[in-house]
C-alpha cells in the first residue's frame, strides 16, 4: 500500500480490511457495486468480494436501512450506504425509532451490529438538499454511535471499530475531505470510538472541531499563532460516545473554549459540548464560551453566499481574537 492515501481511498480500504477479516460483513446501497459508488468510496469492493457481498439496491432508503437492521439482528454485519447524509431523512424512522431502540425495548434480547455510512457536509456546491451536516440529527437520538473522521488514517481505524462494534454506528464521511491525503494506516489499525484526539497542543484557547472543521481549525490555529495565541485543537472524532473528558482536560489548561461547527448554530453538537463544560467545567472558564457555527439558514448555492453562511478560517480567528480580548 502507498504511504499516502486519500480519504476517499481510505473508505474503501477500511471496508475491505473488515470484509477480509470477517465474512459476515456485507455491503448494500445505491450504485455501490460495479460503479464503485457515486463518490468512488466503494471502488474495488465489488471486484474483490463479488455481488454476494456487495449489493446494489433500488432507490429505497427505508428498505436499505431497514433490511440492514433485519440482517444485523440475524447474524450479519451490514454496511449500508446512504449516498448523501441529507437522505437519512428518507429513512429517519429507522435511525430515530427502530435501530437505536430495539435492543433496549426488548430488554437486551437483540443486538444491531450495523454501520450506516453516508457522505456528509458541504463544500462541493451541491446546494441546500445535498450539503447538510446532519450528524446533529443523530445526536438527538440515544442509542446510535456517531463517527465523523477527519483524516484517512482515522477513516480506516474508525471504520474498523464501527464494523466490529456490536452497536449501530452512523458513519459520516465528509464530502469536502474525500480528496484530501494523509498517512496510510498500518495493517490492523483500529481507532476506538469515543476517543477524541488533541491534534495541536496549545495553552491559550481550546478549539473543538469535527470532520472538515478540523483542518479549518488547524489553519485558524496557525494564523492565531502568528498573533501570539496558541490554540489547542481537539478533533472530537465521535459525537457518541462523546469524549467530554478530553475537552474538559484541555479547557483545564486553556480556560477558554470555542467550538467550530459546520452545522447551523441552532441544535448543533457544540451546544451539547458547551453545556457540559458550562456545568462541569464552569470553574475552569475565564471567558465566555463561543460557538463558531453556520448561520441558521439552508446552505445557499453560490460560493459568494456560502462563505457568508459557513465557518471560515477568518471567522474562527476573529472570534478567538475577540475572546482573547475578554
Amino acid at each position: 500500500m502507498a504511504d499516502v492515501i486519500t480519504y476517499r481511498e481510505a473508505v474503501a480500504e477500511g471496508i475491505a480490511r473488515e470484509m477480509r477479516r470477517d465474512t459476515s460483513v456485507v455491503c448494500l446501497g445505491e450504485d455501490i457495486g460495479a460503479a464503485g459508488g457515486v463518490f468512488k468510496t466503494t471502488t474495488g469492493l465489488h471486484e474483490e468480494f463479488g455481488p454476494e457481498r456487495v449489493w446494489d439496491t433500488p432507490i429505497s432508503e427505508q428498505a436499505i436501512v431497514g433490511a440492514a437492521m433485519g440482517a444485523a439482528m440475524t447474524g450479519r454485519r451490514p454496511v449500508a450506504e446512504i449516498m448523501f447524509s441529507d437522505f437519512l431523512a428518507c429513512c429517519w424512522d429507522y435511525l430515530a425509532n427502530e435501530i437505536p431502540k430495539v435492543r433496549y425495548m426488548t430488554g437486551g434480547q437483540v443486538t444491531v451490529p450495523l454501520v450506516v455510512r453516508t457522505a456528509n457536509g458541504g463544500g462541493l456546491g451541491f446546494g441546500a438538499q445535498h450539503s447538510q451536516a446532519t450528524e446533529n440529527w443523530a445526536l438527538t437520538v440515544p442509542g446510535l454511535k456517531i463517527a465523523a473522521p477527519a483524516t484517512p488514517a482515522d477513516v480506516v481505524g474508525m471504520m474498523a471499530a464501527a464494523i466490529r462494534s456490536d452497536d449501530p454506528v452512523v458513519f459520516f464521511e465528509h464530502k469536502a475531505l474525500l480528496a484530501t491525503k494523509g498517512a496510510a494506516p498500518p495493517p490492523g489499525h483500529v481507532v476506538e470510538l469515543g476517543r477524541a484526539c488533541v491534534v495541536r497542543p496549545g495553552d491559550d484557547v481550546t478549539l473543538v472541531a469535527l470532520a472538515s472543521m478540523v483542518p479549518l481549525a488547524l489553519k485558524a490555529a496557525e494564523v492565531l499563532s502568528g498573533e501570539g495565541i496558541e490554540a489547542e485543537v481537539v478533533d472530537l472524532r465521535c459525537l457518541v460516545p462523546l469524549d467530554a473528558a478530553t475537552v474538559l482536560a484541555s479547557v483545564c489548561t486553556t480556560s477558554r473554549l470555542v467550538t467550530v461547527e459546520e452545522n447551523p448554530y441552532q441544535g448543533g453538537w457544540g451546544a451539547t459540548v458547551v453545556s457540559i463544560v458550562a456545568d462541569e467545567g464552569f470553574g475552569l472558564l475565564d471567558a465566555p464560551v463561543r460557538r463558531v457555527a453556520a448561520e441558521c439558514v439552508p446552505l445557499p448555492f453560490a460560493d459568494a453566499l456560502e462563505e457568508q453562511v459557513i465557518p471560515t478560517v477568518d471567522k474562527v480567528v476573529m472570534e478567538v481574537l475577540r475572546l482573547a480580548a475578554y
Partner: protein
Amino acid sequence: MDAAGLLTAYERMAVIRRTEKAAHDLFLQGLVKGTTHLAAGQEAVAVGASAALRPDDYVFATYRGHHHALARGATPQECLAELMSRATGLCKAKGGSMHLTKAATGMLGSYAIVGSHLPMAVGAAWSARLRGTDQLAVAFFGDGATNIGAFHESLNLAAVWKLPVLFVCENNLYMEYTPIADVTAVPRPAADRAPAYGIPGEVVDGNDVMAVEEAVERLARRARGGDGPAVLEAATYRHFGHSRADPAAYRPAEEVERWLAHDPLDLARGRLAELGVAEATVAEADDRARAVVERAVEAAKAAPPPEPREALADVWADGGAAWRT
C-alpha cells in the same frame, strides 16, 4: 393439518383468546398501563402461520402482536408480566404491550410504527440467503400498513432479490377508526398490490386456521425453494376496539355480528367435530388453556417491579447506557 394438529392449534388459539381477555380485564383494573391492541378474533392468522413455520424461521409483527408472540413461543405469563410492568416481563418491562419480542424463538419483535418492520423482515430473509440457510422471514401487518412507503420499498426489494419472505396482511377492515376501504385505491389492499412487484398475491380466510396453515405452508415452500416472496392477505376481524377502551362504535352492528358468527375458535371447533374429535377432548383443551392463563395472571401479579437500575441497562451491547466520558 390433521386432527391432532388442529387440536393443538385450537388450544393455542384458546390460550391467546384468554390471554387477550385477561389483558383487557387487567387494563380495566388499572393493572396494565398505557395501551393495548388486542388481537382477539385474529388468532387463526398467527396460529395457522406458526404451524407452517420452522422453529428457526423469523417473525416480525406489529403493536397488535400478542397473538404472534404467543403463537411463536412466548408464554402468557411472560406477556402479561410485560403488560403489567413486572421484572419478569418478556422485555423486562421496557417494551410493553406494543413491543413483545421473543428473539430466542425467532419472534424478532413487535414494532409500533406502522410498516416499519417490513424492511426488517426483508433483511432477515436476505441474511438467511447470505448465510446459506433456507430460513424464512414473515412480516405480519395490518391493512392500513399497505399505504405506507415502507410497504412498497420492501415488496420491491424482496421481489428483485427473490428473497424468502412472506408478507402476511391481517385485513381486519379498519385502521384505527377509519375503514381501510375509504383510503385505499384497490379493494384488496395487499393482494391487489402484489402484481406491482411481479409476485403472487393471495387472499385467504384469516379466521380459518387450516386455510391459513395451508396457504403459508405452500408459499413458504415456494420461497424457500428460491422462487421469491409472496403476499398473503388474510381476511379477519378484531373483536375489541382498536386499542384500550375504544368501543368501536364506528362499526355497523350487522358487520360485527356477521364476523362474530365467523369466529376462528368456533370454526376450528366445528372442524374438530367433523374430524371426529370428541367434545370432551376439546373441552379439556379449553380447560388447559384457562388454567394456563389463570396461573399466568396470578404469577404476573405476584412478580416484582423491575429494579430501577434496569433503566440504564441494555442500550448498548455491553449492557450499559454510557454515551460520554
